[in-house]
């Protein structure tokens, strides 16, 4: 089947496109939102995009378990990042009473 169909009918290309778009959206969230928590979520989205791509490839490589293991590690790491990230947000909030990243801009130039 041709490229476009493959994308639309759930071929590997389709998953890749979804993954890359998800990645882009996650990045865009980091760039466009000011609420720190949402920016972190954007990062999570990017990780998820990676997961999608990873598992899609795994599927088309006949269910490669290596990828699956990697997926587990990625989830773990994602959790860790979330933990540290949230801790940092809370720490910042204690000082600045805000979670607006634009207002935490005292270090510059």
């Amino acid at each position, binding site marked *: 089947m041709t490229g476009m169909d493959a994308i639309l009918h759930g071929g590997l290309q389709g*998953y*890749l496109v979804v993954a890359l778009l998800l990645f882009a959206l996650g990045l865009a969230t980091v*760039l466009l939102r000011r609420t720190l928590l949402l920016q972190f979520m954007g990062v999570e989205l990017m990780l998820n995009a990676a*997961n999608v791509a990873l598992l899609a490839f795994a*599927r088309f490589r006949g269910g490669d378990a290596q990828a699956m293991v990697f997926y587990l590690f990625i989830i773990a790491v*994602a959790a860790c990042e979330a933990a540290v990230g949230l801790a940092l947000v809370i720490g910042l909030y204690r000082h600045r009473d805000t979670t607006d990243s634009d207002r935490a801009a005292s270090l510059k130039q």
Partner: protein
Amino acid sequence: MFITFALITLLGALGMLLQKNVVVAGLCMVAAFFGVAGLFVLLANPVAAALQIIVYTGAIMVLVLFVIMMLNSHEEEKAQASHPVQRWLSFALLAALAFGAVKLVLSSGGLKALAVAGAEMPQAMTLQKVGTALFADHLLGFEVAGLVLLAAMVGAVALTKRNL
């Protein structure tokens, strides 16, 4: 089916990007995660789907929403507050990436070959396979992942513990 889940995922993400209200944005993101889980199912990978729902929607999202509430930072965010250059550059970048993604996928010969070759491969991803791989090949990784978790925990504690 694929289209549906794909749309759920992407629209959820888009909603999170555009939704003014922080809480609602967070909920959009839950949707996105669900969509991803669905995709995993389609990829004949129920384990991953389950993990996705448990870990992300279950753990992380709840945590995030909890923090959002706690820090009551769910006031409306004024989008125009962000510098126009920042905003338009970002949107341009987003568009470019989206366009580039499709183009990239279409232009990659290796991908096409793989799609064709992999379509009729056996697909079952069983926990047994995973387990073997995990403890046979990736013992080191497993340990390290543990260390990462420990480190993150210590870090979080160090950052937030009150009595210091």
